[in-house]
């Protein structure tokens, strides 16, 4: 037996030829994150007259494997804002811990009412994301931030791994941008129509959009989290189920999988 530990556990040279040691070496430039690993899919959000509704399903995928089915991707901040994470789950956890620390240290000076509103939080996160992408080490997430702005008006905005930011009466990340955004935009094409929307209507629209996402997004789940943010705080439900599904349309889909005719 070969007593040298570096020779253990390798394919036999006499069978497979000499071992290619270049696999064990770092070659070329240093590389940071090149792709997300465990991922969460779409987050969707819509403004209504008193606040914002946000939803995301409870799935964390590992490639196409539905790896974790009880992941909470909506995170309240200081009881006054809500954050929805899509993209890399470990980066989400990093941000979550970072924000826990931030909210605690903010509370030292003002324990009774939060100093940072959703607009402040969104600005903070966009700078954090931009800073990381400028180091070529991005946090692989696409975030929605919901809550109230400086004037107490409903606030909804997105920030992505490049540090880009944008805002609209309804927003969606990932597949949702293609599948859910058009549905929500039918109801709230502009700020005026968002100002007329009631809370119940907003929740119904979001629930409908989540259902469409479950129908058409293969990396999605029928259990999801739904949050409503108003001036009274965050109401977060983390164990919602899609209701009244109808898969009748599936009959008409042809040309995929094992189907032969």
């Amino acid at each position, binding site marked *: 037996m070969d007593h040298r530990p570096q020779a253990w556990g390798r394919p036999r040279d006499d069978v497979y030829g000499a071992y290619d040691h270049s696999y064990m070496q770092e070659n070329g430039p240093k590389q940071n994150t090149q792709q997300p690993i*465990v991922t969460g899919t779409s987050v969707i959000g819509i403004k209504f007259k008193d606040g914002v509704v946000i939803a995301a399903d409870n799935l*964390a995928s590992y490639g196409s494997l539905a790896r*974790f089915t*009880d*992941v909470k991707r909506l995170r309240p901040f200081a009881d006054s804002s809500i954050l929805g994470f899509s993209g890399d*789950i470990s980066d*989400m*956890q*990093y941000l*979550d*811990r970072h924000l*826990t*620390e931030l909210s*605690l*240290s903010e*509370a*030292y000076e003002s*324990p*009774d009412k939060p100093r940072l509103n959703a607009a402040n939080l969104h600005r903070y996160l966009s700078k954090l994301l931009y800073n990381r992408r400028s180091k070529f080490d991005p946090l692989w997430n696409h975030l929605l931030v919901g809550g109230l702005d400086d004037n107490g008006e409903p606030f909804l905005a997105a920030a992505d791994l490049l540090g880009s930011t944008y805002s609209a009466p309804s927003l969606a990340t990932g597949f949702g941008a293609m599948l859910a955004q058009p549905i929500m935009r039918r109801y709230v094409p502009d700020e005026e129509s968002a100002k007329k929307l009631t809370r119940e209507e907003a929740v119904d629209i979001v629930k409908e959009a989540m259902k469409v996402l479950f129908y058409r997004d293969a990396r999605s789940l029928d259990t999801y989290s739904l949050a409503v943010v108003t001036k009274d705080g965050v109401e977060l439900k983390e164990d919602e189920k899609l209701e009244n599904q109808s898969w009748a349309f599936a009959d008409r889909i042809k040309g995929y999988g094992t189907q032969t005719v």
Partner: protein
Amino acid sequence: MTSIGTGYDLLNSIFSPDGRNFQVEYAVKAVENGGTSIGIRCKDGIVLAVEKIVASKLQKPNANKRIASVDSHVGAVYSGMIPDGRHFVDRARDEAQSWRQNFKTPIPTADLASRMGGYLQAYTMYGSVRPFGITAIVGGVDTSEETPVDGEVGSGPAVGAGGKVPGKHGGPFLYMIEPSGLYWGYYGAATGKGRQAAKAELEKLDLPAGNITIHEAVKEAARIIYIAHKDNKDKEFELEMTWISTVDGPTKGRHVEVPKELREEAERLARAEDESDDEEEEEKKDDDNKMED
């Protein structure tokens, strides 16, 4: 003070021949001159209160807070040298933060008290430093809920390694840490100028029996601070009060200021009792006078 001039009181790192550290004893004197602080541990939470002496009429009322949040579930109040107290709070916050970094969970109050005890004790051993001129009261409610690790994914194993430990968890805890680094857990703690009167009142409450609710404790705390202030009547003071209830209580396990209405109601009751006591005393005096007549 027979010890003065013997030389054993000049340095922290030197014992006197009869085994005392005079620097620590002087630090205790600094505490004994500070505004009274108290803490009450009841069955459903913690109440902290302080007699905040108003040093100048030019200071903004209700500003310059004396009770600090260390973590979301822990508060600290202190009597003695205020800058020392501020540093104590800074250090406690660092400890709470590093605990979260290491263990991804909020620091238990007992562990915070232990670390702060150790920190204060280290300032009694070296010639180059002086002890803290404060006695601090640290109160916290360790959550009784199943606590998710910060940012965790999934819920972890139900049993076995890393699984759930059956039985009761958490609850309210109260500790008092002295300049020597000595700390004990208490049901009711008092320090500062009026501590004797305050302790006497706290003992009457029979706190270990666990009959008092946090709302009652708020009223008692206000009353006790008013009683403790009686020996210091020439100075104006403000009552500052915070509380931490258990998760199912009014503060949901968080350390926050007692709401203004509640505090003012408690103060009104405390003042009413104070005045009726004074009247009784005066009546007594009148009676005495009559008897002399």
